[in-house]
């Protein structure tokens, strides 16, 4: 195996395009484990951490752009980002241990393609946009449109995600992410939910985006669950309708960590609890 430090994204794309079995290395908390376990045996590892901008969190048009090599710990330490998108940051911070947080990246969590990836439902709810570099140049794509299936994204050949953009927020908005795991820390979501809300002056929900993780081959947006909250001050009836919409959107696997029935039920519970947190963060009074 060769190890190459890419100087810019053009070089990284060119290296991905050589026809070699190339993999990208940012935090390495997935790819190095896959190599160790023998699931991946790249002939070329392209380190993207030295590319200018890839390690930056930068303010842009009222939102934040998060580079592909920014670690979870760095996101958690960024006061401005945490204040604007607390749900996204708390989702990223749930990934792994302190040691993993020191290296793991949000973009890597997305590219790894796990249906249970913690950052992904939060990014979907936030309307996050991925910036993609490839042989034919730069393009932007909704994170929601990138999801393909377990271990897969819709990234094309020799394409990479250089950053993810979290947009500006109106007043009275808030987001939250919750997952269910059988223990307190260091586990993979059995079911999870990201919720992003915008409230009106009276504390009623103006806009609501709900996304679920670990209950389908990819994280999924649930438009009906968001619609169920719109116009409400998050009263019980709206929350019940939201939970029902979430349950209807579930198509989970059945395994030792959670049955189909359990994952389906819990997805709705996580969504309604996350909605309450997002509502409070948006300034609403429950």
């Amino acid at each position, binding site marked *: *195996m060769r190890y190459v430090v890419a100087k810019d994204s053009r070089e990284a794309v060119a290296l991905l395009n050589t026809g070699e079995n190339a993999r990208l290395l940012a935090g390495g908390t997935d790819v190095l484990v896959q190599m160790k376990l023998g699931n991946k045996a790249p002939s070329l590892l392209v380190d993207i951490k030295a590319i200018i901008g890839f390690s930056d969190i930068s303010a842009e048009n009222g939102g934040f752009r998060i580079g592909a090599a920014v670690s979870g710990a760095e996101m958690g330490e960024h006061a401005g980002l945490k204040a604007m998108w607390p749900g996204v940051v708390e989702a990223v911070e749930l990934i792994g241990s302190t040691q993993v947080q020191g290296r793991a990246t949000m973009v890597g969590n997305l590219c790894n393609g796990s249906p249970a990836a913690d950052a992904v439902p939060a990014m979907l709810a936030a309307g996050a946009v991925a910036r993609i570099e490839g042989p034919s140049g730069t393009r932007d794509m909704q994170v929601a449109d990138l999801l393909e299936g377990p271990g897969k994204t819709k990234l094309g050949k020799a394409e990479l995600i250089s950053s993810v953009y979290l947009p500006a927020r109106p007043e009275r908005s808030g987001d939250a992410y919750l997952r269910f795991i059988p223990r307190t820390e260091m586990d993979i979501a059995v079911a999870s939910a990201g919720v992003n809300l915008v409230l009106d002056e009276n504390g009623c929900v103006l806009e609501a985006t709900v996304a679920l993780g670990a209950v389908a081959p990819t994280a999924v947006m649930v438009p009906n669950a968001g619609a169920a909250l719109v116009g409400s001050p998050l009263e019980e009836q709206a929350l019940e309708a939201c939970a029902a919409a979430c349950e209807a959107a579930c198509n989970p696997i059945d395994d030792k960590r959670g049955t189909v029935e359990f994952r389906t039920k819990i997805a709705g519970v996580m969504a309604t609890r996350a909605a309450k947190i997002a509502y409070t963060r948006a300034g609403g009074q429950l």
Partner: protein
Amino acid sequence: MSKIHITTQVNGDAVEFLCEPDETLLDVLRDRLNLTGAKEGCGTGDCGACSVTLNGRLVASCLVLGAEVAGSEIETVEGVGTADALHPVQQHLLDHAALQCGICTPGIIVAAKALLLQNPNPSEEEVRYWLAGNLCRCTGYDKIIRAVLSAAAEMRGENA
């Protein structure tokens, strides 16, 4: 495979080594630099026995490549305290008998020291969350947590 030449800093000393492109920092530390304090428990970033700091950031050295650390500052357990003057975390782990087999201990020491640098007065819950990635199969954790909390108190100048 052609080896990669790396110059970096470990425990304040300039070091250089040759490593394979897929060789982990843990293997470099243990097999090339003879720093065997960091242990391989799992090799997949789950157990924390290989914890070191990389540019001040706590990491699992089994999930870092040796090739990645050029120009970095690495601290291992060998850089924490001396035989004559143990770091408070080390002394309190001893005082609390917070180890049995000792495999997890170097990682616990490095991780706990990193915590107390950024948070001199952690709550018990904060210590438990911070050390959640440092698995110990002997102690049941309670003595470790108490040792870290009393080391923190001593470092703040309080009566431990």
